[in-house]
């Protein structure tokens, strides 16, 4: 019932004048194409706008690119092929997810390297701090250690 309505609407849309400016009503032959359309239109940058993807922009060029995206998806192009097509004409600028290569290698590696550096910092700091603790408590007898623990727990509860 809903599908029929959608198809009817699609018929109306395709026949309508090209007055659709902002929210176009593209019809897709397969539901996963619509999902890919939504995802890719958020990944492609509008070449003219102040930092908007083509999904959110109502600039003429954004509309053209959305139409092109729809066409390419219906023709069966893969995500990579579509992105390469856009990049060949508008440059790397038009991708919001930088391709892993060239200067963008630094961008993708940076979080990983930072994280590893972070782990290193944690481990090194713990090592230097923990050494003294071990040395300190070893000097206490078992009974003293028990008393110490009880005292510490009391302080914990009171804080």
């Amino acid at each position, binding site marked *: 019932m809903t599908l029929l309505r959608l198809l009817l609407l699609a018929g109306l849309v395709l026949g309508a004048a090209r007055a659709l400016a902002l929210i176009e009503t593209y019809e897709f032959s397969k539901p996963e194409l619509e999902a890919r359309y939504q995802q890719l239109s958020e990944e492609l940058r509008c070449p003219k706008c102040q930092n908007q993807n083509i999904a959110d922009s109502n600039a003429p*060029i954004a509309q053209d690119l959305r139409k092109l995206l729809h066409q390419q998806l219906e023709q069966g192009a893969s995500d990579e092929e579509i992105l390469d097509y856009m*990049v060949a*004409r508008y440059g790397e600028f038009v991708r919001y997810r930088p391709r892993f290569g060239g200067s963008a290698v630094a961008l993708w590696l940076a979080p990983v390297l930072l994280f590893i550096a972070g782990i290193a910092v944690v481990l090194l700091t713990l090592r230097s701090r923990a050494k003294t603790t071990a040395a300190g408590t070893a000097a206490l007898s078992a009974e003293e250690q028990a008393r110490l623990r009880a005292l510490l727990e009391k302080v914990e509860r009171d804080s």
Partner: protein
Amino acid sequence: MGHRLKLFLPLILFTLLAITLFRGLSLDPSEMPSALIDRPLPAFSLPALGQARTLTEVDVLGQVALLNVWATWCVSCRVEHPYLKQLADQGIPIFGINYKDDDAAAQRWLDELGNPYRFNIADREGSLGLDLGVYGAPETYLLDAKGVVRYRHVGVVDENVWRTVLEPLYRELTTQGSAP
């Protein structure tokens, strides 16, 4: 000593950042070089405006030329038009792409304001524009004799733009072309 160095690390990183930001102040983030620089003009097959023939990429070969993207709905194109006429009168070859426009309106415009173009490619759907990476009008491409894109200027071409950017490159390509 190593510990001291570690403390200076934030300052060093900040200095690098400050230098980058300083450099950034003289850059224009919205300026976008064409993706087609040093690549041939894409293949196309479109009607000529006001003529009964079909134009292809072969028709622009043979000389260094300007390829100007314009439309009647583009206000800046009207501003740019007189200067293009001047350049055409000086003998600079200019070809036009009438971008996503109406043929009749375009023809009227040229009749009214004069025609600086050797010919006009009627790109009604904007397909050639898409292949070129056009994102608005006016834009002007500089092609060499072999039809390779050498430069793109976004915006109005006026005296200043011609003298400082386009003319030097035009002269260079022309002498290159004629050298053995």
